[in-house]
């Protein structure tokens, strides 16, 4: 027995320790990585194919594609070339987007404050459901509702605004047609962006450090003083980012705007007048009977819309992520 113990043992070769992943893991990582990069690639492809198909239109019109007001098909008999410019539509898109922000963001921030600091416990849950359901309603439903239900009311409101504030140029009225105006489109968009702005604002408000809130109360602050002194400084970036995210949604909305906005290829500052513009709605409007050349122009318009919304979204997400990290 003892001899066997004394016998010199051949030491086994040490186990190879390596960080090299197993074969299955390599396959797994490759699959997951390629899956993860799909959205990356997809975003690039969207931009590429839209500009690829629309390049001709932008080259023909030059910078006029952005600034031009006309959307005229070519008339070969009269030797008139096609002229496509989305200036008026782009302007209209921005106007309705800003109107939606002006009406939607205060309500959304108020609701977020309500949910975070004012609502009694029993009301919080149903209220969150309300906001979530609002976000889940498809835009065609808002379009139908906006046209048949909201518009008669909104027309009346617009008339009142014109009657009492008509001296302000925005509320002036060259022709008494109050339906399908940027004001009503902005109203519908405001309702549509409220849930997303509320959600982001609430998320940001929830991150306010509790000890600061309690410190403010301990110093005898009222609820509003506390919000002003603690919550807003902490959440400002998030609220701005959320509002911009809402703006991105409003700029790209198609169907709901199409039903409640009269597309006119002209720039009008009167927001109550039945004349506005929206790039996305114009694409749907012109798509049906577009020939090849016009289709190229529509692709270019889509590219501009894609670029604008992407930039707004990038900016919004950067702001939100920065606020969330701090």
């Amino acid at each position, binding site marked *: 027995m003892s001899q066997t113990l004394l016998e010199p043992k051949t030491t086994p070769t040490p186990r190879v320790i390596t960080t090299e*992943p197993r074969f*299955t*893991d390599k*396959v*797994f*990582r490759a699959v*997951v*990585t390629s*899956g*993860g*990069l799909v*959205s*990356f690639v*997809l*975003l690039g*492809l969207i931009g590429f194919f*839209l500009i690829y*198909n629309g390049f001709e239109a932008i080259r023909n019109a030059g910078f006029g594609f952005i600034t031009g007001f006309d959307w005229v098909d070519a008339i070969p008999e009269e030797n008139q070339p096609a002229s496509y410019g989305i200036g008026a539509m782009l302007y209209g898109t921005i106007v309705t987007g800003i109107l939606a922000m002006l009406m939607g963001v205060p309500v959304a921030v108020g609701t977020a*404050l*309500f*949910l975070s600091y*004012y609502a009694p416990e029993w009301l919080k849950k149903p*209220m969150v459901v309300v906001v979530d359901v*609002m976000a*889940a*309603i*498809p*835009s*065609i*439903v*808002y379009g*139908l*509702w906006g*046209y048949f*239900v909201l518009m008669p009311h909104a027309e*009346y*409101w617009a008339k*009142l605004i014109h009657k009492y504030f008509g001296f302000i140029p925005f509320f002036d009225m060259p022709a008494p047609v109050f339906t399908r105006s940027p004001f009503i489109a902005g109203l519908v968009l405001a*309702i549509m962006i409220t849930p997303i702005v*509320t959600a982001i604002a609430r998320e940001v408000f929830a991150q306010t450090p509790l000890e600061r809130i309690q410190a403010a109360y301990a110093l005898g602050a*009222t*609820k*509003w003083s506390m919000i002003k002194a603690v919550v807003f400084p902490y959440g400002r970036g998030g609220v701005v980012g959320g509002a911009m995210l809402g703006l*991105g*949604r409003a700029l790209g909305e*198609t*169907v709901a705007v199409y039903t409640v906005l009269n597309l006119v290829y002209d720039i009008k500052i009167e927001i109550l007048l039945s004349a506005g513009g929206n790039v*996305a709605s114009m*694409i*749907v409007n012109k*798509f049906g009977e577009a020939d090849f050349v016009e*289709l190229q122009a*529509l*692709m270019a318009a*889509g590219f501009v*819309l*894609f670029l604008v*919304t*992407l930039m707004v*979204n990038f900016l919004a997400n950067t702001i939100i992520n920065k606020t969330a990290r701090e």
Partner: protein
Amino acid sequence: MSQTLIAKTPQKPWKLTPKQLLPDLLGAIFTVAATFAIVALSPLKGKLGFALVLIFMAIITATAISWITRDRKAATNATTTVLVYIAAAFVIIPLASVLYEIVRLGANALSIGMFTTDMSQTASETELSEGGLLHAVIGTAYIVTFATIISTPIGILTALYIVEVKGRFAGPVRFFVQAMSGVPSIVAGLFIFAVWMVQLGNAYSGIAGALALTVLMIPTVARTSEEVLKLIPPDLREAGLALGATQWRTVAMVIIPAARSGLVTAVILGIARVVGETAPLLLTVGGADAINLNPTQGNMSAFPYHVWKNLLIGSPNAISRAWQGVFVLMVLVLIFFALARYLGAAKTGNRRSRKR
């Protein structure tokens, strides 16, 4: 040895006494009374006038009471409190109106026949007893199913890449997925039109619509899945690895099963997001009045398309058809929504009990 514990009834010294509540109560009564009086005496009429006066009076009364009983700071606080409550009310009103009108205008347009016939033999103008939306039901079922089949793996893989693999591009991918969820739906439609029809020369079909919806569905699935995977406790991951499992085995046998209900929620949320999308379908599926059982060929209809088409026709019966379609669509969306919430609630419930 029996001991009687005399538990004191819990005191709430911070609770407002009836005397403190009295001004608020009186204020509320005064507000309503004054509103009625002003609406009755002044030329302001109707619901709008009433609402405006009520809001105005509520702000004035609340501010005045606080100012008198306390000070300026309290008055500001009272004003903003009323404003915050009004903001919350403003959120409820449109939703209530939307749901109410859908039920009012959509429910009486409902019939059993609408699920058994299509519109191929019927003009939109005819009475609603004829024709139905079976073609739209089948179209939506096909399109959404295909979109789900394509976007579920991609969405979940994206989430796994961000949370589990944590590759070199995890940050940028996350950022781009966020940005992608803001891509306008019309742009998604145009993109598929540019690739699938213009470049590849295909005709309108259900598949094209499904591809367009995929672009919109991937970010929703990916972002929700990411949130769900982040909630999985790291202990599970480490336990799997400590047992000698490869990362693939850990993810497949531990992480995915643990996150299953959450991932299902993510997919359902994705479906709820795209089932009502109209704009991309307008550019890709072509629309049809007859049932089309082949998603790879021929024009197809879908709920949103059916509603859109009848809305544009605009005759009273067509509009009733549009409301009918919207009613069914909303029921679908709410079912998916409730399902997602139910599964999500079950998941958080589990987590809470595990903590205990």
